């Protein structure tokens, strides 16, 4: 007979309507045996009482339906972003609110590196520092004899120092699009887009693949999740080189790896039928801590980069419509092949023209290869109107909505991208739920911080960085938001039978909190402390 552990807690919020609150949960073989009071496990035999969570509030472990492995590995570089963050080891990474603070922070970071190592940082965003633009002279203050590179938060731009420019052989004579020059005609250090960034990245050894795939990156991702109370996390656009699945099996299989990982394979690099077959084959290698078999598809770009495909009347500044990363006819073919092979897809859609194309593709696939339980998921869904949500409800399409965007970029969307009226209905969780869509909300970490309680706060309040409320009519209740980051997300991963609520029979995955989110209420939700997680009955406190 396996051991029964009985956890006592200050309060257990179950997200199960049959018993919304409890004080005790019994665990056997990594699963929830019983929920209720101190005697809930009595019929099952002797239980060992675990009091380590007695002064904590438990919730179902949070489920993050849209994040990227890079959110772990990127921390091997210094953080230069505007907002405060916490690194995977729990050390605070304070936001840098001026260029001087960026420079000072990197000086300190450089002092801790070997003398010949390049100084590399990430997360910088000039949109929040409207003073002087970061240039090589600022970064020369950090080091003159070794290269310094600061990656911007969107990863499309970087700024480097004079030494890095010299290594890439960029000079006054360089005539390359994206190598920006100052008034004196010399490169000013800013490099835009990959072609211009490539020579520097190559010489500094910046490799996005390794920070998205190696063992240490996977482990760091696990730690990032644990800090946020997340027990199931996606990696949407995963790489599978030979041996990668073995690595993932090994790392996620370790008892101290604190999260269930759900990678969705990036749907590029082969013909559609082949992609579907690869994903279907991967599914067979799944374990309880590694869920394989879904595919991620790209469609358009981003709204704040003016590369999202938007419907009439387009961008308020008159910018040309965005770009397709996958042509619409190929999107249709990819969805059809995946559906035919029984492979679930997660489809990136920022602009409303992209979401329309994706919905059309799923509808067409449904006619040629009917599959009522496909649960294809539109990801981001930022500009979708009520009409598109109704179609999603009709077709059984799930929507994972980018709630954090309201806070991070809401003001920019009003002023610069799509204007007040359409910004008000952005990331419309209220409409989605009212129209009967299975919906969740996400961070897209590392684009914004992984923190489901913050994401829930963003959906409840719809407050922007300037403090205004953007789209009051789209606010949801605390309960709805908490449902979205637990059962709502679990549904989109087809894991709602296993995780997402604390009820008998499900996996014993909990978020361990320092306060009750319902008591904290709409305003305090984001400040509820996370003390760690329980995964399959194993306690992982911070």
């Amino acid at each position: 007979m396996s051991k029964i552990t009985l956890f006592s807690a200050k309060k257990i919020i179950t997200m199960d309507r049959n018993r919304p609150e409890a004080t005790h949960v019994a665990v056997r073989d990594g699963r929830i045996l019983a929920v209720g009071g101190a005697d809930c496990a009595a019929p099952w035999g002797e239980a060992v009482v675990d009091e380590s969570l007695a002064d904590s509030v438990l919730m179902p472990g949070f489920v993050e339906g849209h994040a990227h492995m890079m959110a772990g590995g990127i921390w091997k570089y210094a953080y230069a972003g505007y907002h405060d963050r916490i690194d995977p080891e729990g050390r605070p990474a304070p936001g840098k609110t001026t260029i001087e603070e960026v420079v000072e922070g990197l000086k300190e970071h450089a002092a801790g590196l070997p003398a010949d190592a390049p100084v590399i940082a990430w997360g910088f965003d000039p949109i929040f520092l409207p003073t002087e633009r970061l240039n090589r002279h600022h970064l020369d203050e950090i080091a003159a004899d070794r290269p310094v590179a600061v990656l911007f938060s969107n990863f499309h731009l970087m700024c480097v120092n004079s030494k890095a420019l010299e290594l890439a052989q960029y000079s006054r004579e360089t005539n390359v699009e994206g190598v920006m020059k100052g008034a004196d005609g010399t490169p000013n250090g800013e490099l835009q887009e990959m072609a211009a960034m490539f020579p520097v990245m190559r010489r500094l050894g910046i490799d996005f693949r390794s920070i998205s795939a190696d063992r240490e990156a996977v482990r760091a991702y696990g730690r990032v999740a644990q800090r946020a109370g997340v027990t199931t996390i996606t990696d949407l656009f995963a790489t599978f080189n030979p041996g990668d699945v073995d690595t993932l099996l090994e790392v996620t299989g370790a008892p101290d790896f604190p999260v269930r990982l759900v990678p969705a394979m990036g749907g590029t690099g082969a013909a559609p039928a082949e992609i579907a077959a690869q994903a279907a084959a991967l599914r067979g290698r799944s374990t309880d801590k590694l869920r394989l078999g879904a595919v991620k598809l790209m469609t358009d770009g981003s709204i704040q980069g003016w590369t999202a495909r938007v419907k009439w009347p387009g961008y308020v500044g008159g910018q040309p419509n965005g770009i397709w990363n996958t042509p619409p006819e190929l999107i249709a073919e990819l969805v059809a092949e995946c559906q035919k092979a029984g492979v679930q897809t997660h489809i990136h859609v920022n602009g409303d023209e992209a979401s329309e194309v994706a919905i059309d593709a799923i509808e067409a696939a449904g006619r040629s290869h009917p599959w009522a339980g496909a649960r294809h998921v539109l990801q981001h869904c930022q500009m979708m109107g009520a009409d598109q949500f109704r179609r999603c409800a009709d077709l059984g399409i799930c929507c994972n909505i980018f709630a954090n965007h309201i806070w991070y970029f809401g003001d920019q969307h009003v002023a610069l991208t799509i204007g007040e009226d359409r910004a008000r209905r952005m990331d419309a969780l209220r409409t989605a739920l009212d129209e009967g869509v299975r919906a969740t909300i996400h961070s897209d970490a590392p684009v914004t911080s992984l923190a489901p309680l913050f994401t829930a706060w963003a959906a409840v309040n719809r407050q922007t960085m300037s403090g205004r409320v953007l789209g009051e009519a789209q606010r949801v209740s605390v309960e709805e938001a908490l449902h979205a980051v637990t059962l709502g997300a679990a549904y989109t991963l087809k894991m709602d039978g296993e995780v997402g609520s604390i009820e008998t029979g499900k996996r014993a995955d909990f978020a361990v909190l320092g306060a009750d989110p319902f008591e904290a209420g709409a305003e305090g939700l984001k400040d509820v402390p996370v003390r760690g997680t329980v995964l399959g009955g194993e306690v992982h406190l911070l």
Partner: protein
Amino acid sequence: MSLPPLPLTVIGGYLGAGKTTLINRMLRAPGGRRIMVMVNDFGAINIDAELIEAAEGDMMSLTNGCVCCTMGADLFMALGDALDRRPRPDHLVIEASGIADPSRIAMAARAEPELAYEGIVTVVDGGEFPRLAADAQIGPQIEGQVRAADLVLVTKGGAPDLDLRLSVLSGAPVARLEEGTDATTLLLGQARDAKLPVEGRGHAAHVSWQGTGPVMDRATLEARLAARPPGLYRLKGWVRAPEGGVHEVQVVGAGVTLRHLREARETQLVGIGLRGTFDPAEADRWWRGG
């Protein structure tokens, strides 16, 4: 850095335009080059692995994705791998994805000192182009691919006025790619070892030209190159400079690169033009200053 830069040619064009067919044809007559092909598009026709092998070449599929796929980081990471390959290939050919802007890839060859820019070739399905260009969703990107081209190759027919339209759009030479046309030299330039047997079967899509002679200062040379005859797609070589040394000349399509080298060499230029558009006799007159 003792290795010569790796020449990079980018093949752009929409799904089904004929990019893969073009590459297979090129691999059939590699002219002694070890060609590495980077495949980023996957349609009904695949790159023929046997041809790659026969040409002692190599192929990389871009199966790596990452969070930065929208910026095409995977492609650039693979570009780094190609540069690190030993022995380094003689030529790198990237087949861009059906929707990609080929100039975003080719720009890397201008940025990276270890790469040499060898042009953007956009392949157009003549029959489909008018419909695609008029498509509200993808039209601008399809036209953008043509606009980026140094050379436009038209496959599969098309209305008689199409060539003019493509030519106006791109400002680049437009050639018809008939069955059996050998476009390798146009795409890749003259093979390094000219003694090797002829490039391929079928009739060549190009005409060669050679120029020797004068010493020229930079300004005169720039003016001369600006007035180069139509259809002269590639021009490569050296022109003696009055102050000593030579100007290294590298022309692909509309792009002209001049660099002063301290080497003592005679003036010698090799040109490659489009058959039917380019007239070597006219080039002689041009080069003599006539």
